[in-house]
């Protein structure tokens, strides 16, 4: 069973936002941005811009009819700057013009006067100055403080992970149309149609019923269009509302990179204690999250960092504290893994730190501390259906971990200028929105009189194949061919109050709602068949569009039954609601049962480093993954491969560089590099672990979107292993990404022409100055 969309994708017939046929009278919008990272906004003068041919309006905060506020969790983010500017790229005004060229040409003619204020780009500096987006949170189990004295080994250190640009290939955008009665209809490239609807209504001073948001599909999202599609939807709507004409707003690549938030960089302190048997008995960690200038989703991302601070290990005494720090960067936001990867990088750094100082392999510590059935996570949910050891042992056996280690060591003995490295990365990821209320979904299913079926849910298709899975669920539940099913666009007037497509939970939530709706329709149809054909309801089934009675074909088919139902005035539409059962979490005690279930897996990563040039290749990533009973192995394998490579990118090539003025230097595809065809692992094996899945997973097929990203962390530790093979005394810091620069300077730490300690400087933020020379 193939993903449904690709037949259209390969022919170029899938419609994305910029492909929507342009309506007569459309105005084009371009956003005037703050060129200063922090300051008092003194004036905006659009006189010169308005005098240009084709320019129709220049809108500022003064033109907003409702409240100038789009903050999702904390109301701290204006749609258009008012009073102050807080980051470079912050929207200040909106130009509306008759053509895209005219709109962009006008940008330079809007004069924005700002009185500069001090700029903070480093989260630790922000924390020291009390610049926090929300109060700090601490997850605690046992008593780590009381345990240190009894530990055989205690190690402390610092770990840093960089941000990551989503780099969806389709940039952000929206197309808004004024509707009668003074409302707006928005075609939006968003993972969260309801968020766009709610904030637009708020900004325009309308009821949510006056704002319709429609999403056909996204050209990639990865979290970047969860909350951060909202400003563009709301701005286009503001334009349409004021001008009473359609308004189209599409960001060009560099504007998108400058203006939107990214994965949060973290700087963290860790302390780990082990007993004589290498059991981790205590762990303390403090996370400093670089949140950017507004809260956005940072508090929720921070919470998930805490949930995953112990990765897939059982540690009885844990104190994990997290600060969400306000800096003058664009508000950082959701990105596949949602803070989980940042938490896991630190515990893996702590384990590597301990292993290196004791002269052991990290695997000696990792394997011994894996979660077992019933072990408690620091938030007190027990590990149920735990496959941590199964995943590790299967990967180690199937991909022959001892032989891999031997090969690497032998190669390193035989080669002076080429070194290999190996790392094992086990993962455990909790599935559910950690905000319990968001774990609900609805589906609206229509059966048309010809037997074809339309399904509407709150799920947004962005390449993850959720529409295919939903169609599969409907087809399987109704007993009909998938060709009869159309998954409709995601539209707030058909399915209301939706959660964003995020948290890996989209197929589970919307699939379950679809299943419930289809079960109700199926029952209704079979009840009719039972009455009309005088058959026992209990023995009735629909299979391959044929009604079966006690396993034998009855005298009716899907089409006939549907037609009969219409004439008997049986309701052929159903609207179902699903809420994940059993979930609860108390955010004051930080305890509860937040996750429907956990997903497990283990990856082996092998790299080879050219020690003369500092360049490297990821040779192999070999994964044993817990899919449960995969509903669609091809879609699921695609998620593992794509997620792992995205994680490798985060850990290796992808380096966000801001200067001290808060200006993004890695501001285009020529300066910010994501993996290409040649930089991905030469071998990428995916083994489907034999696991039963979970009843809270759609048809026991476990969520698969985010977990594989964290396999990429193995690339960092494998590179570290290789660097230490060349230079055993390396004092290499726990600082990701491991760029070719970091590799080379750590291979050759003694090369200096002028003294500098910049090599191990963890944060790239402040160490780089701008230049026009390249």
């Amino acid at each position, binding site marked *: 069973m193939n993903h449904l969309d*690709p037949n259209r994708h390969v022919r170029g017939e899938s419609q994305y936002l910029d492909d929507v046929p342009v309506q007569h009278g459309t105005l084009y919008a371009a956003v005037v941005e703050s060129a200063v990272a922090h300051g008092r906004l003194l004036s905006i003068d659009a006189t010169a811009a308005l005098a240009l041919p084709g320019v129709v309006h220049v809108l500022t905060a003064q033109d907003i009819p409702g409240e100038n506020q789009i903050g999702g969790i904390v109301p701290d983010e204006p749609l258009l700057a008012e009073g102050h500017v807080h980051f470079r790229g912050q929207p200040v005004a909106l130009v509306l013009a008759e053509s895209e060229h005219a709109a962009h040409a006008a940008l330079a003619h809007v004069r924005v006067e700002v009185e500069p204020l001090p700029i903070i780009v480093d989260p630790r500096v922000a924390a020291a100055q009390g610049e926090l987006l929300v109060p700090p949170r601490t997850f605690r189990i046992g008593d780590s403080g009381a345990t240190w004295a009894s530990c055989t080994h205690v190690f402390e250190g610092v770990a840093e992970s960089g941000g990551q640009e989503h780099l*969806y*290939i389709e940039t952000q955008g929206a197309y808004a149309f004024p509707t009668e009665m003074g409302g707006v209809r928005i075609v939006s490239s968003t993972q969260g149609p309801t968020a766009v609807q709610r904030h637009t209504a708020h900004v325009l001073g309308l009821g949510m019923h006056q704002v319709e948001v429609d999403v056909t599909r996204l050209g990639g999202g990865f979290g970047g269009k969860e909350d951060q599609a909202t400003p563009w939807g709301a701005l286009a709507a503001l334009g349409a509302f004021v001008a009473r004409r359609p308004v189209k707003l599409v960001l060009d690549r560099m504007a998108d990179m400058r203006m939107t938030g990214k994965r949060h960089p973290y700087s963290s302190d860790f302390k780990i204690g082990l007993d004589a048997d290498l059991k981790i008995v205590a762990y303390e960690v403090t996370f400093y999250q670089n949140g950017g200038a507004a809260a956005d989703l940072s508090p929720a991302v921070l919470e998930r960092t805490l949930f995953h601070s112990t990765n897939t290990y059982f540690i009885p005494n844990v104190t994990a504290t997290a600060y969400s720090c306000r800096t003058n960067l664009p508000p950082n936001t959701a990105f596949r893994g949602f803070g989980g990867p940042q938490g896991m990088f630190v515990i893996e750094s702590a384990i590597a730190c301990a292993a290196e100082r004791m002269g052991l392999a990290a695997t000696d510590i990792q394997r011994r501390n894996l979660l077992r059935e019933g072990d408690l996570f620091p938030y007190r949910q027990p590990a149920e259906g735990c496959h941590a050891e199964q995943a590790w042992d299967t990967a180690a056996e199937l991909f022959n971990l001892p032989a891999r280690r031997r090969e690497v060591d032998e190669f390193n003995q035989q080669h*002076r200028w080429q070194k290999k490295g190996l790392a094992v990365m086990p993962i455990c990821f909790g599935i559910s929105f950690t905000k319990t209320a968001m774990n609900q979904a609805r589906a609206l299913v229509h059966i048309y009189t010809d037997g074809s079926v339309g399904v509407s849910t709150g799920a947004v298709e*962005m*390449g993850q194949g959720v529409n295919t899975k939903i169609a599969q669920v409907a087809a399987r539940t109704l007993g009909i061919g998938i060709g009869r099913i159309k998954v409709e666009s995601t539209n707030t007037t058909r399915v209301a109050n939706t959660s964003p497509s995020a948290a890996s939970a989209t197929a589970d939530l919307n699939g379950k709602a679809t299943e419930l709706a289809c079960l109700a329709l199926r029952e209704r149809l079979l009840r009719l068949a039972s009455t009309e054909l005088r058959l026992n309801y209990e023995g009735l089934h629909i299979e391959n569009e044929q009604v079966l009675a006690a396993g034998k074909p009855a005298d009716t088919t899907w089409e006939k039954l549907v037609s009969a139902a219409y004439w008997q005035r049986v309701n052929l539409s159903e609207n179902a609601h699903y809420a994940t059962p059993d979930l609860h979490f108390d955010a004051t005690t930080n305890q509860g049962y937040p996750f429907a279930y956990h997903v497990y897996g283990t990856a082996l990563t092998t790299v080879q480093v050219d020690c003369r040039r500092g360049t490297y290749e990821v040779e192999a990533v070999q994964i044993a993954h817990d899919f449960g009973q995969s509903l669609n192995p091809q879609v699921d*394998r695609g998620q593992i491969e*794509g997620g792992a490579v995205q994680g490798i990118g985060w850990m290796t*090539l992808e380096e966000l560089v801001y200067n001290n003025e808060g200006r993004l230097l890695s501001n285009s595809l020529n300066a910010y590099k994501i993996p290409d065809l040649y*930089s991905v692992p030469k071998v990428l094996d995916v083994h489907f672990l034999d696991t039963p899945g979970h009843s809270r997973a759609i048809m026991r097929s476990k969520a698969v979107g985010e977990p594989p990203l964290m396999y990429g962390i193995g690339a960092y530790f494998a590179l570290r292993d290789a660097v230490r093979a060349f230079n055993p005394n390396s004092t290499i810091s726990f600082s990701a990404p491991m760029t070719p620069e970091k590799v080379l300077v750590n291979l050759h730490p003694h090369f200096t022409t002028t003294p500098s300690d910049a090599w191990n400087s963890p944060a790239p933020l402040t160490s780089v100055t701008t230049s026009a020379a390249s």
Partner: protein
Amino acid sequence: MLQFYLNNQLIRTAQPAGSTLLDFVRYHQHLKGTKIGCREGDCGACTVLVGEVDAAGETVQYQSMTSCLTPLGNAHGKHVVTVEGINQARGGLTPVQQAIVQEGGSQCGFCTVGFVMSLTGHALSTRPSTEASVRASIDGNICRCTGYKSLERAATQLQEQLQARPAAAPLAWLAEQGYVPRYFADMPGKLQALHSAATAAATGGSETTAPAATSNGIDTQAAVRARILGGGTDLLVQQPEHLRATPVQLLYSQPQLRGIRQEGNTIVLGAATTAQQLLESEVMLAALPQLPRYLKLVSSTPIRQMGTVAGNFINASPIGDLTILFLALGAEIELQNAAGRHRTLPLTELYQGYKQLAKTADEQVTEIRFEAPASTDAFNFEKVSKRTHLDIASVNTAIWLRLEAGVIREARLSAGGVGPTPMLLPRAAESLVGQPATVEALRRAQELAQQEISPISDVRGTEQYKRLLLHQLLEAHFVETGLLTEEQL
């Protein structure tokens, strides 16, 4: 008036020659299959095929190009193919499309058409389909969803199918197999007719008419007013709005600016020679047998098919890969001004400061000349960038050494990313002359090189890193050329 075929349709347009093919296709012709990803040739979502009829008028050679950086004028007289031009009737899939669907090579789909076009270009190529060449055909396409493994599987599937493609007249076979529609068979004739008509028509033309060249290759009046535009791969990144609004003088398709020939020991390149043409030249491969290894590090397949050698020189980037390579080869350039006056300039003398050139605005490069290295000479090119392929160098460098009886008699060493211009390092090079290729000689050159460079910290690396990198790459030169062994270092 520009004239070309877009898929099966003859286009006549007065749109500016310096506007992009991408905007024309998407917003004037409403062919929405071609996507906008970055507008700087770095993602490949806008890849189209551009076919050029051969001199005999018998076959059309297709190359993949990123339409975001293709000046519309460069389409003049050609066959531009978008996905709409290869789609089969009634929703059928071509073998390329089928392979991608089967292997799960499309997730969000936004980059997919670019891959389809690149692989279709590979199928239309007359070169053999190998595992390496089919992968190379998609090396300019970025995908954020799949991690490429499924696309690799699709490419492999395709490569196996293409083993059956006949070497002679492959087009009939490709049409039969459904790779391209049957109208492709008519394209040589149609393009030939277009050329004849154009030749028969005016020779003056408007200022944006593409091939309006005078006998010396330069439209003298237009040259004074117009921006000179080659492949577009730098200028359309830097100033697309300006190029759209001003007259441009197009060089890319001018036959007198193309071609690679050898005159005695001297190799002569036309200014509009592309990187891809270097790779396909027997003259170049004989002179520099390792050229494919070097050029694999330079941009991507579509960009190599678009960007010109002279364009790389004139862009004057301090890290221009081809510039660094040709500096070490001791290349000279032939300049011609609007009045038709010629002069010759050593390439190294072209660069006076950051993006400052020793040439007047109306002067353009017509030829590039260099002495072919002897088989006993040592030559090597090194480049390190954050991402090994399709990236801009942190540091690049090339070396040429003339050896006699184990002693270095002449030396040229170039380096990029270590100063405001692409530069030669004469003192480091000079220190090698008269020396046998020993570790000591290398160390001395490494030391002198550090004194000759002035790198700055930027997004491609810190100053310290660039210094270390050049130091290491000089070592790599000696190892790669076999002058020193791994054990000696």
